[in-house]
């Protein structure tokens, strides 16, 4: 048997050595990891807008070419200073040929079952129709809640609309297949398939899409007025 004194000395020494090793690796690699995260966020913004990119260098190049980050105020005006804390982040995606913005991407944050979900939503310039959605950070159960980041779930949202007859409607995430949800016929454009077995995560996504787009409501209202497009009413214009 070892004496208590020996055991305590041994564990203390072990802990000190291990903490040095771990702290060392973490600080040496930190810069590179942050850079990776940054590129991953850029990739998510591009993916949300429906642009697929293969590797990291391509991500950076495309991002710099197509994406203009900006900050807008609660009133919906574009702010000069991006450090404004009250502002909301918004990214406009330029079309290569016409060099006009064909999509806007904004971050969406909401609560899932275990964790906070972070993602990006991409919408048409009127802010109505969804071009794409991505989730880049969450801690949901793999195989259940984590399905939100899978293609089948994300594809669900493409073409759905946030507004109905000019009023904000949001997106309902059904329990399982959307066809079985009440009122499906009248709301086809506002309902998506949910994840069976992950109702709370699905509802979390629904809540997130009910609140986050409202932050940008005024901004899109302004741009729509200048573009002469009646907000959410005239769906044919957007095809």
């Amino acid at each position: 048997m070892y004496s208590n004194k020996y055991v305590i000395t041994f564990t203390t020494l072990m802990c000190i050595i291990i903490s040095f090793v771990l702290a060392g690796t973490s600080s040496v690699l930190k810069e590179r990891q942050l850079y990776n995260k940054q590129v991953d966020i850029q990739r998510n913004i591009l993916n949300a807008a429906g642009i697929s990119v293969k590797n990291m260098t391509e991500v950076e190049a495309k991002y710099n070419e197509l994406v203009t980050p900006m900050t807008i105020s609660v009133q919906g005006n574009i702010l000069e200073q991006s450090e404004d804390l009250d502002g909301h982040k918004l990214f406009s995606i330029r079309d290569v040929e016409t060099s006009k913005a064909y999509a806007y991407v904004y971050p969406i944050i909401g609560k899932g079952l275990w964790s906070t979900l972070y993602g990006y939503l991409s919408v048409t310039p009127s802010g109505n129709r969804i071009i794409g959605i991505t989730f880049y950070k969450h801690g949901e159960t793999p195989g259940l809640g984590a399905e939100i980041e899978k293609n089948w779930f994300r594809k669900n949202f493409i073409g759905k609309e946030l507004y109905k007859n000019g009023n904000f409607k949001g997106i309902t995430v059904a329990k399982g297949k959307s066809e079985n949800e009440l009122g499906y016929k009248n709301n086809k454009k506002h309902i998506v398939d949910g994840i069976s077995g992950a109702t709370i995560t699905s509802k979390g996504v629904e809540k997130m899409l009910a609140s986050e787009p409202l932050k940008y409501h005024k901004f899109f209202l302004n741009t729509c007025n200048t573009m002469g497009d009646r907000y959410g009413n005239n769906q044919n214009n957007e095809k």
Partner: protein
Amino acid sequence: MEIIKTMKNNIWYSNPIAFQVLGVCSALAVTVQLENSLVMGISLTLTVAGSNFILSSIRNYIPHNIRIIVELAVISSLVNVIDELLLAYYFEMSKALSVFVGLIITNCIVMGRAEAFALANAPIASFWDGIGNGVGYAIVLAIIGSIREIFGSGCILGYKIVPEAIYSLGYVDNGLMLFPPAAFILLGMFICCLKAAGGATGEEK
């Protein structure tokens, strides 16, 4: 020669998955694609070899009554280092493997080899035992991963290998292959074949 013998034993006769039936849960989870399986195999090999070596070198100083805690501390630090390395140099893979890299800590192979081998043998022998077990695990993962990738998505390492002509004849990728139960079935069949071929008997020859 000793090394070759240990390797052969660990890979063929007492393969960690096929004979010792250790580390099966991660084998089911990460084998959807060959690339994931390979990275997981390499990460595990490094962890087992590293932890075996370190634990074996300090085996005479480890107080017996807290040895499990010491083993866990060493293993989890190694896994953390590997996780950090993946995050820095192989970010996409680290996202694809998500929690499973962290779960190497609880992979029974690592603990099992530390308990059964490293605490009773010299560092160099333990190191090679770790490599042998890791490679044995990696090979099984790679085989199952490639079968699942070929039949589940028609690719190998992300490159399409099933020609379009076959698809136009009505062939469809098998969706079951993408789910963990497929790995379970394949693993069972794999162990069965290995036993029939004379492997995974546990006898050292």
